[in-house]
């Protein structure tokens, strides 16, 4: 088995990994290798054909594939090596990975490793949906790969589960592939996307949105024939005939390498716990992008990748690793906050990202450390599946000796 060494290894060549690689090289890092298991770099945007990618990081609106290409080109131009078709399967030692690729089985050691493995949509089984196990029950990821990478045509009726941005992307993909969406379901009282997308879905694709409704059983074998849905308010069950079920959103961070490295997980996000610099609890191991929570838009992931470069460079040049980070935790109806820790050294002062379990408006957020209120901030709206930004100015005034810091909604109104 051959073994190699790099200054920085980045696992995952999606928006976060590619952006981290480009930024590191531009800051003068030595050998930077991006290990990407797919044959083409770019991650999820490769198969997301709607536009709007790159608004936050490249300040222009691109299609997913264009965006993926640009990020890959930028990383390559900056001198990062893209090792595609290669999977980092396990750790051989601290900061040393075992890789499998067409080039063979190799090991790759580094001074710093950035995990940017992203997340995937929770599949049917993990959602514990009862019923038969027919073909035709897929996630948006599978749908987009079928349609955009394989050129599949789809006929028949589809039920889309979810009403977030990605759900509307699934709707557009279904329409383009020839399927008709007969229902969109969300457990929440309204959709969680922009009004324009929802209107487009309702008018453009005539997809009726059924709010406060969940999928409760799948029927059919060997292919899906129908689903039973339940109205959460009345308890009424009804049958919808369909040939496709698309499960959207409900992202799970791909945290396997983080766990096997011994990194602590954030129970709320199920991603590795990071501080504002992207440092995990394992020295030399960083995380960026949607591995830390599921999921942010691609350009947000890209920015977290770019931001991690600072601390990676500092670590490579010998700066010390935070010993006991202070946790930041939140209480229901808040769901998670990222980063979930403060390392108190070399952190960027970017905003924190906050999610709620349900749709809320007029929210007053309070950040408290023991008896001391560090920060209060009003948020007009909090939508499940969409992050709100919480200012980080208060971090400077926090006490590094008291953990955790509690973030809660002291008042809020439920959206109906």
């Amino acid at each position, binding site marked *: 088995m051959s073994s190699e060494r790099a200054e920085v290894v980045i696992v995952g060549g999606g928006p976060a990994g590619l952006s981290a690689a480009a930024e590191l090289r531009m800051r003068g890092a030595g050998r930077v290798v991006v290990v990407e298991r797919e044959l083409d770099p770019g991650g999820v945007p490769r198969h997301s054909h709607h536009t709007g990618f790159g608004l936050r990081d490249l300040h222009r609106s691109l299609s997913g594939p264009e965006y993926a290409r640009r990020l890959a080109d930028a990383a390559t131009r900056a001198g990062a090596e893209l090792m595609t078709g290669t999977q980092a399967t396990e750790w051989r030692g601290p900061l040393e990975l075992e890789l499998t690729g067409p080039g063979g089985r190799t090991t790759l050691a580094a001074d710093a490793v950035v995990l940017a493995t992203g997340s995937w949509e929770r599949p049917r089984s993990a959602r514990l949906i009862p019923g038969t196990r027919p073909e035709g029950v*897929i996630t948006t990821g599978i749908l987009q790969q079928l349609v955009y990478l394989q050129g599949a045509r789809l006929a028949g009726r589809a039920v889309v589960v979810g009403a977030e941005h990605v759900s509307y992307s699934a709707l557009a993909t279904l329409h383009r592939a020839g399927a008709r969406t007969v229902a969109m379901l969300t457990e929440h009282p309204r959709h969680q996307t922009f009004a324009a997308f929802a209107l487009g879905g309702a008018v453009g694709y005539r997809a009726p949105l059924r709010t406060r409704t969940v999928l409760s059983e799948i029927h059919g*074998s060997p292919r899906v024939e129908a689903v039973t849905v339940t109205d959460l308010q009345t308890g009424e069950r009804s049958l919808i005939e369909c040939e496709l079920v698309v499960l959207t959103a409900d992202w799970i961070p791909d945290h396997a390498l983080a766990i096997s490295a011994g990194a602590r997980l954030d129970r709320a996000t199920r991603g590795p716990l990071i501080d504002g610099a992207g440092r995990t609890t394992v020295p030399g191991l960083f995380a960026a992008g949607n591995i830390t929570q599921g999921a942010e838009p691609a350009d947000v992931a890209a920015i977290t990748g770019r931001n991690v470069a600072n601390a990676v460079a500092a670590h490579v040049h010998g700066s010390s690793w935070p010993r006991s980070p202070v946790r930041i935790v939140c209480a229901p109806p808040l769901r998670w906050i990222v980063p979930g820790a403060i390392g108190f050294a070399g952190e960027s002062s970017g905003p924190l990202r906050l999610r709620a379990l349900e749709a809320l408006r007029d929210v007053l957020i309070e950040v408290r450390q023991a008896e001391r209120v560090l920060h209060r901030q009003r948020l007009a709206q909090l939508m499940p599946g969409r992050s709100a930004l919480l200012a980080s100015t208060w971090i400077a005034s926090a006490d590094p000796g008291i953990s955790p810091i509690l973030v809660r909604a002291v008042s809020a109104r439920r959206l109906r």
Partner: protein
Amino acid sequence: MNEIGEFDVAIVGAGDVGAAIARELARFQLRVVLFDAGDVGAGTSKANTAILHTGFDARPGTLEAKLVPRGHALLSAYAEQVGIPVERTGALLVAWNEAELGRLGEIEENACACGHEPLGRVSAEQLYEREPDLGPGALAALEVPGEAIICPWTPPLAYATQALLAGVEIRRYERVTGLAATPDGWQLRTPAGAVGARWLINAAGLYADELHRQAGFDGFTVTPRRGELIVFDKLARPLVSQIVMPVPTSRTRGVLITPTVFGNVMLGPTAEDVTDKRATGTTAAGIERLRTLGRRLLPALVDYEVTATYAGLRAATEHDDYQLILDPDSRYVCAAGIRSTGLTASMAIAEWVREQLGDAGLELRETADGLPEIRMPNLGERSLRPYQDAERIAADPAYGEIVCLCERVTWGELRDALAAPLTPRDLDGLRRRTRVLTGRCQGFYCAAQVGRALEAGGR
């Protein structure tokens, strides 16, 4: 009607039992045909608990009590020979309350009466030392060292592959729709035509009672007993090192927690009698019951992601023993009513059938060549998988191209499966031969690509 041919033996059902019988008979100069309405091992055989049982809890004196230990020995040796993953984890049978504790003595006596070595007693303290993540409240346990975990999918495929290579005609996706006695034996009808056979072997699993009646017999009815199971993420694997069983009842072995050879942890099965032989769907109640039990038995488990949920149907009958019947006059053999030990006992049942056929006058002359040697693809985590095998990848880079990112199934393995003698025709078939799509993402990354590979036949 189209004549498919004349055979000495026709076997109906290519599950664990039917395929094992086909393999057993393939050693002799016999013309054998094996029918299945679907793929090999795609019925009840695909959805079991994947345990190589010792039979310590069988009722003494039954055929099951005799054939399970024999099958355990035969399949253990066979697994080594052809590369079926087996891990000798052993099992702990745990008493969670005073009533169960009181029954441990009975279970020990039962095991002795079945001819097993005495089971060891394990105190609560020793139990938690070995399985520290078990929930609180266990009082004591019995140790059953011989219980092992096995790949549930490879055995019937190995049997059938070997039978096929030795000359058995395997007719998959061909349902036997009609049956008639003839002066020479039997005529079986399928949508493709008619087959003559001197002997008929019924290994039709859930449908064995229907075939039994068509053959003119009576005496048992198959009532499917549904067992729902939850497979948890591989990250949960360190939580448990061996099979953890409850104290069984007369009706069921109860809900187990067991590691799998694929590196996951499985919780199940439930036991619920159903009427529909196709009722392999999971239910909200079944999954909830498992999660509630799981939370008590191994509290940390239910916080892990679920990789799969599924339900299998045990071919239970009103009798508590196997329905192994041979009728020499009509040249009919029934191998049915094999509730949950079919995988373990399969080779012993096949041996029993062969012996009985010999006694009934079927001439058994061994072929000159014997059974061809085969080596099945390794699906287990305890042996080197192709993606880990530097030499193999160097010789053929296709084994370095990982397609299924979660289960680390390589392009080389998919290509091999699609070129193998019993070609899979659908994704489920490819799944059982390679593990593809069975991992935590359930196809988010590779389903589209794998589907295309299947359509293209691995090219």
